[in-house]
């Protein structure tokens, strides 16, 4: 046999040529990087979000710094390093030492080399308060109306828990009085003022009514004061790590936990409780403490309202385009336009929503129906209705495209069979085509919901606010308040991260909120994907 010549060599190595193999591996690297990015990001948010609830152990540290020796207790929130002279890196930790009322700043960076000793010493307590965030201290004694209980004696912790439970009840009752009863009272007084201005009531009658309401108001205030008396006799004394004595009124305390004296299960239980409180409580202290319930509520209501608008509009437009319009150049152009809109930046929709819904439609509504309240705008200001409509426009292309796709996937034979059986065109669509394409339409709607729930930029213009005093749906007539501003999870993240007075203190809440928002969007997306996969299987069978 003749040895293959050099040129022939080219043809020898076909099967598993090594040529170009590095490039293939490079493409594999690209894909891996993409996957790693998604997993890392989701993992980061999951870890950071969950760990913001985890009760960390309190470390007591002896610090020798430039300003002398100091003892301090707190938990470590972050480890990092910074460069210094000569190329060295100095390890530093960030600790949360609480007691903002005493130290001014609750977060602190420490060089690790300055820490002389650290130990997890028992007895320290993390106390949640109504103001200044949590306190970290060693309890000393609890003064109750029925006597003083010293720390270390039997039943100290139970007594503290009892006091907190009482305070919880008191807060609940006073909130009811202040929000519901006094709130209704104030509204009644305001309505009288408006009636008086418009001329519906005589001045004397109005004065008499005001008198009655005023009396009622005084009575409510007395009620609230009476309720508060229940917690008045309690006082909690403690000692900070650097030896300062502090005391709090019973009404200031919201919760207590001893992370250093608890086992893993107790801490886990505490974490679950914190998560639950995060979901159902209202925010406190400029949103940096407490929960995000109003934001969850606002997001859900806004998303559902948006779905309510976008579904019929999108489906009708798609049915028109696919079933009624003459398929030609014109429809092609319209389709390109609709696709185009899906790519238009969301902020542009926000701009439109502000100019059209808020200033144009809203002001017109105010002039026609709420003239007596002007110049205070009712609908002529950003609100949840306008936000929902804006997002409905934003997500309309998603629904139209998905519905069209679903409609076109219904086999022609099915349609013709229906018509051949004597069904009218609408009957065929209503009874055959729409049910067959329902999963596809659903997918589109759910994707639209996911997009709408995660979108923030347009909301900055048309209605999301930092703190809404009341929810858009409540038990005050007329129960649904589409003109109200609302809180939104996404906007909450932006606001806490960038407008909050203490961004560092807000970080755990932001991570938790981000986790919540991502979970919401993920669940919606996964639902859509699952429905779509089912759908593919179904059509795969019916395709013949």
């Amino acid at each position, binding site marked *: 046999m003749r040895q293959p010549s050099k040129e022939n060599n080219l043809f020898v190595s076909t099967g*598993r*040529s*090594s040529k*170009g*193999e*590095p490039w*293939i*591996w*490079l*493409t*594999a*690297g*690209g*894909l*891996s990087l*993409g996957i790693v*990015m*998604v997993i890392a*990001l989701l993992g*980061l948010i999951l870890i950071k979000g969950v760990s913001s609830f985890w009760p960390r152990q309190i470390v007591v540290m002896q610090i020798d710094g430039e300003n002398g020796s100091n003892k301090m207790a707190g938990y470590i929130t972050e480890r990092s390093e910074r460069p210094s002279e*000569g*190329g060295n890196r100095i390890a530093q930790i960030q600790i949360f030492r609480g007691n903002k009322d005493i130290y001014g700043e609750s977060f602190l960076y420490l060089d690790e080399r300055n820490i002389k000793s650290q130990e997890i010493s028992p007895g320290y307590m993390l106390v949640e308060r109504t103001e200044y965030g949590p306190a970290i201290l060693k309890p000393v004694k609890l003064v109750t109306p029925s006597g003083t209980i010293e720390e270390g004696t039997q039943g100290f912790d139970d007594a503290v828990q009892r006091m907190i439970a009482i305070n919880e009840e008191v807060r609940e009752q006073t909130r009811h009085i202040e929000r519901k009863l006094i709130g209704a009272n104030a509204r009644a007084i305001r309505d009288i003022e408006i009636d008086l201005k418009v001329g519906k009531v005589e001045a004397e009658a109005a004065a008499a009514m005001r008198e009655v309401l005023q009396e009622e108001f005084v009575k409510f205030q007395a009620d609230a004061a009476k309720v508060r008396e229940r917690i008045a006799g309690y006082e909690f004394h403690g000692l900070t790590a650097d030896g300062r004595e502090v005391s709090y009124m019973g009404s200031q305390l919201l919760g207590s936990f001893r992370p250093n004296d608890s086992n893993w299960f107790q801490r886990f239980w505490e974490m679950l409780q914190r998560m639950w409180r995060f979901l159902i409580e209202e925010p406190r202290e400029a949103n940096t403490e407490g929960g995000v319930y109003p934001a969850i509520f606002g997001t859900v209501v806004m998303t559902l309202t948006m779905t309510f608008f976008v579904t019929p509009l999108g489906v*009708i*437009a*798609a*049915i*028109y385009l696919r*079933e*009624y*319009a003459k398929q030609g150049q014109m429809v092609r152009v319209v389709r*390109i336009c609709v696709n*185009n809109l899906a*790519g238009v*930046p*969301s*902020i*542009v929709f*926000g*701009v*439109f929503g502000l100019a059209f819904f808020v*200033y144009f439609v809203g002001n017109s509504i105010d002039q026609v129906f709420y003239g007596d309240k002007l110049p205070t705008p009712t609908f002529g200001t950003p609100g949840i209705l306008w936000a929902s409509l804006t997002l409905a*426009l934003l997500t*309309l292309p998603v629904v139209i495209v998905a519905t069209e796709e679903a409609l076109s996937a219904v086999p022609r034979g099915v349609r013709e069979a229906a018509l051949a059986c004597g069904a*009218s065109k*609408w*009957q065929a669509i209503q009874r055959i085509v729409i049910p067959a394409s329902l999963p596809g339409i659903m997918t589109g709607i759910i994707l639209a919901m996911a997009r709408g729930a*995660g979108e*923030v*930029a347009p909301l*900055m*213009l048309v209605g999301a606010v930092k703190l809404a005093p009341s929810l858009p749906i409540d038990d005050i007539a007329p129960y649904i308040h589409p003109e109200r501003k609302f809180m939104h999870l*996404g906007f909450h993240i*932006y606001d806490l991260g*960038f407008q909050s007075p203490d*961004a560092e203190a807000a*970080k755990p809440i*932001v991570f938790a909120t*981000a986790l919540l928002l*991502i979970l919401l969007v993920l669940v919606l997306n996964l639902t859509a*994907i699952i429905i779509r996969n089912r759908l593919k299987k179904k059509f795969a069978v019916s395709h013949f």
Partner: protein
Amino acid sequence: MPGPDAKKPDPKRFEVSRNTLLFDRFMGWFIRFGGIAVIIAVIGIFFFIAKVAVPLFRSANVEQSGSVEAGVVPPVIGVDERGEMPFLYEGGSKLTFLNFVDQSTKELTVPGLKDAVITAYAFDTVRQRLTYGLEDGRVGSFLINYERKFNEDATGSWLEPAVIEEPVFTVEHGEGPVTAVSYGDASDPDDPSGARLIVVKRGEGQKASVSVIKLMMKKGLIGTAKLRMVGQTDLSSKLSGEAAMVRASSNGTMILVVSKNGDIDYFARDVLEVNKVQTFHPFEGEVPQQVDLLYGGVSIILTSRDGQQQQWSLFRESAESVRTFGMVKEFPPLPKGAVVFSNSLRNRSFIAGAGNYLSLRYSTSGDVRWEQQVDYKPVAGIIDGKSKHLIVAGDDGVIHRYQVNDPHPEASPKAFFGKVWYEGGMGAKYQWQSTGGSSDFEPKFSLMPLIFGSLKGTFYALLFSIPVALLAAVFSAAFLPLSVKRVIKPMMEIMASLPSVVLGFLAAFWLAPVLQYRVPSVMLMILMVPLSVLMIGYCWGRLPVVLRNRLDGGQEWMLVLPVMFLFGWLGWILGPVVEGWFFVYTDSSSGKQIADFTMWWPQATGMAFEQRNSLVVGFMMGFAVIPVIFTIAEDALSNVPKSLTAASAALGANRWQVVWTIMLPVASSGIFSALMIGFGRAVGETMILVMAAGGTPVMEGNIFNGMRTLAANIAIELPEAAVGSTHYRTLFLSAVVLFILTSVMNTLAEVLRQRLRERNKIV
């Protein structure tokens, strides 16, 4: 067989019930109507936004709205805030007030001027103050005050003018009658003690002298505060020629003396000192005929005898020097003749007229907002306090009133897209600064820094995303087993739906601080990870075929993972080492050497290093852009007809050759459309840029500083913009720009994709 009792078939059994037909027709129309309405509404979005922005491009609308026969040709004309009652002054003790509302006239006499011989006078529109100089060398002033009075039942109102006389002072220096005066006043209602000054010129020709009288509200030994003279300064020796004209800015901080030879001496007042700063000579070979100050007090408008008009502004030549005058822009020339000038007290517009020509001009953009040939010669003119009326006195003895409607004088194509020399700036430039601290702030509405910011953000995002997305798409389409693909594609879609506010938050609060001191590590990782992957691929290719055959195709992505992690980690920990070798900052004062990239970069390149920079933004935007590009490119590559790839493989192409020579060329237009849609997504991204890009509207390609993009700018500023203001409409204009930018890209992408689909069909 049908029985005899079988019912006869209903003859209507093939007919459809009327209700069904009616309903069908109704639904048909309903859906047609609804569908078309939705589509029109959706497309109408663009037109609605554009409609808000359109008024920006309208020029001023000026219409004559009345005239009054005055019978005189007054050299000075003044007016109240609403342009209802102008007054005329011809020197002497008499002021004539004309009422445009009821056409009546009213005369007021200034008591102190009864027997005086007035030889010079000047009117300051800001304070409504007339300053006069007398034959015997004394100077004085009086204020014109309009008070609005109401009927008892508040149904009507009228203006009641009054004259408030101020003290008279004697000029010590020079001799002869006063030939020119000008008043500057830095006091305000909150702080009446502010310094004031009167610039006085005495005599003519060789003997002319210029001096400054400095005044202050001061408490005497007894009684209330009174305006007292605190000194006089003779400027004559410091002049560069025979003085012709004097002018003080209305806030009294600067004094300009124009010489006969055309030189202008600029003096600055600093508390009680008056110092000469600069002498400049505008108009080559021509002499200034008129010098006027613009609103804001840092710009002057000079008009030469042959009608050239220029704006000179105070600015610093370099960061250390004092502010001196320099020419900023030139306006279209005026006809020859006496010049009529008056500036607005709201913005940078002014009236300029000469001959039979009258115009309204805007100094920031250098635009002529309105111009007209009138059938009289304007002699004096004024803009009212609200900038709603022009009052012009003609040589025919008639006072003409014009209604001005120019809500957006700041706006013009040049202001948005061209370089503009703003007051105080060192040159013409693109600048965005929509709001400022004081009322005489000059808004700067150039969209160019924002467009540049958007493109910069997009560039850095795409720089990272395109390689990753395309590589991933190629691997996924060409090599990945179907079972894995079924998991990975939805994962990428989930990546696309991550809320950008979360990405922005992570970028700003997690990634930016982490990367701040790790730039060398990042650079190493960018270098090492792809190289290591290529190397592993090369080594793999060297392995015997027997070994390589053990691995099914499409598993490479898993094998690559540990290598990437290893080298990524190596890069991370080696970063500080490299920093110590190359990026050493030397402290200029102490000579200390610090290995710190964040300090080395500004020293080495002169550009800023910010924590929230384009690197961070580019990486985080990757999460938004990669999945978009990946999904579309992957679709395009997957849809390459199997017959083509199979044929080339059968002809002996190896698997990379199939990709490189068949799949990529065939899917090229699809890949291109993916890139354009990725571009659209990146340009419109808002929250990441609001949160992590720093937000300074600079035009610098520097990767280590931030930017302000069109979208982020809208999100930040629109909630605060007053409805209908220029700022508000300009933000709408930037939304239009954004809309057009993305629409063009998306349409192009869509057309390309459709073409690709058709081509694949044919194949």
